[in-house]
């Protein structure tokens, strides 16, 4: 398959801070998920491929054409930025229609396209309200609408699901999939694996400006499973709880946190541990105040991969 977006030895730094380090990547049509913790370099990469920044080293092309200062290219690209920023004194309709003015469409078509985009994101009812009065979810949706209003061939979405409630997320995921089903190219970033998983099986793992791994979601899951999970349980008697797990094969290591009330467990078999935890708590008659898993974010996996 031919690459739609190609990055070759792409590097970008901000003063002394490295934003992206020698990234080479081919992105084909369909949905590609960019997964990495905050500050990993996802937004830097997206800004480079949308011509908002120029690389210090390397090249980035879309359909073989350079991106920086090539406005004609943007007829076919829709970009949804990460930042929650708008022209707040405009209504949703004015915002979309205003940006559509930059595409040579006649006024009637601008109105029609703006109305259609707002209809897709279910904002027709609120189209005449000022954006400053929109909820976070509505703002996220209008941002998506401006990216699709001109019917682009390539859609670049920087953390599009952040700030959306579960229902909103589901709707937006469906919209992005529809877009993919039309044979287009979507690049979407997130720091939450389940979000990416819901969208695509093609994932690029990025951390500290470097591509750590590329592959499908099962491969990424495997990497995660290979890494011991840390689970913290704060309870009324952590020692009694620990006693219940001594000798348990699902557990690799147990420690007590400095507060004296939290048991920290390292396990390769997270689901098994959770299953037994319920029983152990009931049997010992303990009161559990909090269960947290620092590994639920991807940071630990990335650290593991980097360490590897």
């Amino acid at each position, binding site marked *: 398959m031919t690459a739609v977006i190609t990055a070759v030895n792409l590097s970008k730094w901000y003063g002394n801070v490295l934003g992206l380090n020698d990234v080479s990547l081919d992105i084909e049509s369909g949905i590609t998920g960019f997964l990495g913790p905050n500050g990993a370099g996802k937004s830097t990469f997206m800004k480079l491929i949308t011509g908002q920044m120029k690389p210090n080293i390397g090249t980035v092309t879309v359909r073989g054409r350079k991106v920086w200062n090539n406005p004609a290219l943007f007829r076919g690209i829709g970009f949804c930025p990460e930042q929650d920023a708008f022209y707040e004194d405009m209504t949703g309709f004015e915002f979309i229609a205003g*940006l559509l003015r930059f595409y040579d469409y006649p006024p009637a078509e601008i109105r029609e396209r703006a109305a259609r985009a707002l209809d897709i994101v279910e904002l027709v009812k609120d189209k005449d309200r000022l954006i400053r009065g929109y909820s976070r979810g509505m703002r996220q949706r209008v941002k998506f609408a401006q990216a699709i209003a001109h019917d682009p061939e390539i859609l670049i979405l920087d953390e599009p699901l952040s700030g959306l409630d579960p229902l909103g997320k589901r709707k937006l995921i469906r919209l992005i999939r529809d877009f993919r089903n039309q044979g287009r190219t979507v690049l979407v970033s997130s720091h939450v694996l389940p979000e990416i998983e819901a969208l695509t099986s093609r994932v690029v793992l990025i951390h500290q400006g470097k591509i750590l791994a590329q592959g499908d979601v099962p491969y990424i899951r495997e990497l995660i499973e290979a890494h011991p999970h840390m689970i913290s349980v704060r309870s009324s008697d952590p020692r009694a709880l620990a006693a219940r797990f001594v000798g348990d094969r699902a557990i690799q290591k147990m420690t007590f946190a400095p507060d004296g009330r939290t048991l920290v467990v390292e396990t390769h078999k997270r689901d098994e541990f959770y299953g037994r935890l319920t029983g152990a708590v009931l049997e010992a008659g303990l009161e559990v105040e909090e269960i947290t898993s620092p590994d639920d974010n991807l940071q630990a996996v990335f650290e593991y991969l980097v360490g590897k």
Partner: protein
Amino acid sequence: MSMKRAVREVFGFFFSIGRRTGKTRVFALLALIPFALAVVGRIFLHGRTGDMAAVFTEILMVFFLQFYIVILSLFYGTSVTAEEVEGRTLSYLITRPIPKPAIVLGKYSAYTLLMTLMVAVSLALSYFVLNASRLAQPSLYLTFLRYLGVLVLGILAYTAFFAFLGAFLKKAIIVGLIFGFGWENVIQYFPGSTQNFSLVHYLKSLLPYRPAGMGSGGRGVALLLFRLEPTPPLVAVLMLAAIAGAFLALACWVFRTKEYLYEE
């Protein structure tokens, strides 16, 4: 999209936004000050035409020329690019199929028109209130147009300069304040050709009536003695147009080549 069309569309977009921002409301309110002063002048100087002309000259010199158009141009000019970066909305513009200079030129045009409207209304109100007894004289209207023309030229030149500062510097407002209210004022007290390095010099050279103390034949050259050695009107107009054009071109070039990063 052609450059011309792109500029027109950017103009339309930002003229529509610009009309309703808080900044425009504040500056429109500020424009009522000369009107209020004119009404007060009219009440207290009733029948004294010469005194009223002097009041208007003061309003023109102190308020419009040395304050209002400078502060308007400073805030609107620097915001041509800076507000997009500070507001993080630049991404919406530079990922569109329009040349980057069209963004600068379109916003510049939209904001200069907004400023011109504010200045024109304010100037007309104060001027005609103070000259209400002479409304039948055609020369009154010609003089008004000349005053307005000078102020519009000032807006065009100052805004171009500040648009360049905004595109080039991070803290353009501070530099702009020092230029607009420091350099531009101080340099007027310098004799000889030094004055030519200010915009206000060319604007004052175009005024039909010069206030007392502004004559070219002043004898003193003491440092604090205000003294204008006017440039011929045609040269002054050409200089202002050249300054506006040059700084606008520079602003476009900087905006096209520079990378703008949002503050984290």
